[in-house]
């Protein structure tokens, strides 16, 4: 139970969430974020990419990112395609909508290593993406209350911005 007194469900549901049809829907492309105080079912597809979902049970505001690469190192353009920027921007946008960081709860998905041959390697792209998200959430003191990361298969993720629930389907 969260200090707010509200329960935050981190169960992976076995079938698509039934209330999705009552919500507006959005599709999140790699490198994008979606933050809203309204009720949205946000869908995204993840391979080695990682999505961090943050939800504030007090304001019932939620947001999700989908990043491809762990950290911006000065090469290319700084954008939410990089985990360190995507997580900071997600936090900034939630704060802008009135969310307090100390109320936030996190879920994390993705980071697959799709090839059997490289599964034993500690630093393939998916692992690096998972690690940067874990590290940044820890440094921001945001509890990780649900996750489905790593493994061999891509994932379809649906995240509800209004109640923080998530549904994951292996692809």
């Amino acid at each position, binding site marked *: 139970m969260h200090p707010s007194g509200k329960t935050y469900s981190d169960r992976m549901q076995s079938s698509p969430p039934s209330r999705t049809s009552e919500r507006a829907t959005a599709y999140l492309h790699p490198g994008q974020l979606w933050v809203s105080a309204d009720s949205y079912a946000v869908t995204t*597809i993840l391979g*080695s990419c990682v999505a961090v979902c943050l939800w504030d049970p007090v304001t019932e505001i939620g947001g999700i990112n989908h990043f491809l*690469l762990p950290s911006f190192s000065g090469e290319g353009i700084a954008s939410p395609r990089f985990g360190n920027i995507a997580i900071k921007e997600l936090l900034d946008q939630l704060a802008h909508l009135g969310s307090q960081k100390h109320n936030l709860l996190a879920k994390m998905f993705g980071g697959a290593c799709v*090839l059997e041959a490289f599964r034993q390697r500690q630093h393939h*792209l998916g692992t690096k993406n998972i690690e940067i998200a874990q590290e940044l959430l820890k440094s921001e003191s945001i509890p990780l209350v649900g996750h489905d990361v790593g493994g061999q298969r891509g994932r379809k993720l649906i995240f509800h911005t209004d109640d923080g629930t998530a549904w994951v389907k292996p692809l």
Partner: protein
Amino acid sequence: MAARKILIVDDSETMLQVAQMMLAKEPYDLVIARDGAEGVARALETNPDLILMDVMMPKMTGFEALRALRSNDKTSAVPIVMITTKAEAESIETGYASGCNEYIVKPVDSVELLAKVRSLLGD
């Protein structure tokens, strides 16, 4: 060790050139094909280590080529990255069901492309 071979399958000359430019500084042997059917033929003939596959192409789409490659023992385990438009990305679930390993959304970013290529080649 022989240079790793990457097969780029795309009907757009511009996209082929862009991908080749992005990978030019890397020690990869690049092979190209200009439609899905040629992509399957070139894959069987050249045994690439990785395939970058466009989706919408004449003769055979990228998804059809993907299924053909996955059903052939010679190419069933080759990493395949689908290169999609934003609209096509929303149906990439089909690509995963057919056996793609990753996808990249156009416009292709060189940092992202190189990171995924290196990761899939185990570099």
